[in-house]
């Protein structure tokens, strides 16, 4: 690693007089590859390296210690996690009340899994989320691949349309969707719910796919066509396989976003399409509830699984 590059000019190496050098070259070319040997100094020459790309200095650099920043940061991170930890803690409460600790027990977990209303609401949420995920992922992939080569104006317009649902406050979008449904004659129910979910899931699918596409060398696609793959074959055999980590990441995010949604679903539900967040909301409006502790802990687990999986996928750089 310590090959400091001398300023060696290859032509300054002594080969004796000119004609001997010419003869040597001729012998080498006749012998083939194995005859080529570089002089010592160049044998191990590495390509010149750029200056170190480390951005920050040593970790213990005193200059970077701003007072209290570390302490504050850890405190705030704790602030983010302690409430949820408390909820998880109380989900294992053996007592009848949500907050009065009466020993460790899984009774409430058992109770939740047999609670008809909760199970129904979860089922509804899952069905809606799965369908919305599938639809939004498909639409999102199609969108990203179609928009990649649009003109700047065209793609700006398109991305505004796609991301519109992220710019509008949820309460407004919720009531507006309800009004819109009413106007076009659809009764609130399963279909508009799924469609609305699909719509606000699309931006979350598009983002990681776009990010992933940017890391792929586009010359691969040209190479595929050069080697005889038609447009469709290139998409199927090269583009999509290479995008898989982004697609999976996007699908996971869409799933979570759909499962989490409250505001918009709230205005689109009927008796038969209560989703989990809506049901929980109605429960806790009346106060704390031990079943909700359990549901909360499980939803936290979902968030952890999705985030960790997504991070692992996007950080795998070998593809």
């Amino acid at each position, binding site marked *: 690693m310590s090959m400091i590059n001398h300023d060696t000019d290859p032509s300054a190496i002594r080969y004796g007089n000119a004609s001997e050098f010419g003869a040597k070259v001729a012998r080498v070319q006749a012998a083939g590859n194995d005859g080529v040997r570089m002089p010592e100094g160049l044998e191990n020459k590495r390509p010149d390296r750029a200056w170190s790309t480390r951005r920050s200095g040593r970790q213990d650099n005193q200059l970077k210690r701003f007072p209290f920043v570390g302490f504050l940061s850890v405190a705030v991170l704790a602030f983010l996690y302690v409430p949820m930890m408390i909820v998880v803690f109380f989900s294992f409460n053996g007592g009848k009340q949500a907050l009065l600790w009466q020993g460790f027990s899984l009774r409430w977990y058992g109770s939740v899994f047999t609670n008809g209303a909760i199970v129904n609401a979860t089922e509804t949420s899952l069905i809606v989320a799965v369908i919305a995920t599938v639809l939004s992922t498909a639409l999102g992939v199609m969108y990203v691949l179609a928009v990649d080569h649009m003109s700047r104006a065209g793609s700006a317009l398109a991305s505004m349309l796609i991301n519109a649902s992220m710019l509008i406050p949820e309460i407004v979008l919720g009531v507006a969707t309800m009004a819109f449904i009413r106007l076009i004659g659809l009764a609130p129910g399963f279909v508009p719910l799924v469609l609305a979910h699909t719509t606000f899931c699309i931006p979350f699918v598009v983002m990681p796919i776009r990010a992933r596409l940017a890391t792929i060398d586009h010359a691969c696609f040209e190479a595929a066509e050069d080697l005889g793959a038609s447009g469709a074959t290139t998409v199927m055999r090269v583009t999509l396989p290479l995008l898989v980590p982004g697609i999976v990441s996007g699908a996971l995010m869409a799933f979570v976003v759909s499962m989490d949604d409250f505001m918009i679903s709230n205005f689109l539900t009927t008796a038969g399409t209560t989703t989990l967040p809506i049901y929980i909301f109605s429960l806790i409006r009346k106060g704390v509830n031990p079943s909700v502790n359990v549901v909360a802990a499980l939803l936290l687990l979902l968030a952890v699984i999705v985030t960790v999986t997504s991070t692992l996928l996007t*950080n795998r750089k070998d593809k």
Partner: protein
Amino acid sequence: MSGATPNSKTATTQPAGEHDKRDEHGERPAWTRWFASAHPVKPGMLNRLWSVPSILIGLLFTLGPIGVIVAFSFMSRPDMGGGVVFRFSTDAYEKLLFRHDYFGNRSFDARYLAVFGTSLWQALLTTAICVALAFPIALWMSMKSAKVQQILVLLVTIPFWTNLIVRTYAWMLILNENGPVNWLLRLLGMGSQQLLYTSFASVIGLIYTFLPFAILPMYSALSGFDFRLVEAAYDLGAHKPTVMRRVILRAAMPGVMSGIALCFIPAFGSYVQPVLLGGGRVLMVGNLIASQFAEARNWPFGAALSTVILAVTLLGALAASIMGGMASRKAGA
């Protein structure tokens, strides 16, 4: 998809379309050059038309509803029940600012402006605290080693994806009369306090919800920052506060702008936290609008409120993106 000839090496050339016809000099017709980029699909990509389904559904379920709600705000309310009557009227907007008494006299009504004010105040407070807390965290995170940074980002992102109701519920649990905080207060001899169902609780909930929204964009802006600039500044004799102000803050500004926008806009229209933690007794924009479409059954008024909120947040988003753009340029992005 791109109208290709079959995969055959001896295919004779077939013009794929009008744009492929050449004149006697071998030139394509001039007009095709306008669409030249339109026709051949980039290798590995799809034809533009494939974006139509998603654009369509985006139009239908975002612009459509928005259009409808704006339209509804100019309509009249039926005598009974919900819905609207298709008759133009600006009653809804008038109601925002004025009230009519029994005799038909019109006077200025500040109640709804007060509601806006309350929401605005809570949102500003939330945003200020979130941004103030997020900045040191983002700074601290960006100075760690790459591996640790990945873990920290993971830790900040998990709350981001946890259900909003669940996160709000956590504070209901904590601030409850029988919850840990009051337990601690009783232990310290201060007796139970009414912490839940107050504006205080609502703001705490909002801060808790939106803190990751502030941390992530700031971290993103700072993680691209070359800390050798800081070393260079010290080398030139600057003191820590100066360095902080002139070098680091300037680089983080685009992230700060994003954080402000991402916190303020949803906080302004929030519904869950004021209702669950604030008790729903204080009227805020979120539950005001919701009630118009539920018990109050005044759809046009709810629509008018929504339109105003929409206008305010869109203006805010526009301002934030402009200032973010300016900040990016100043930061040398």
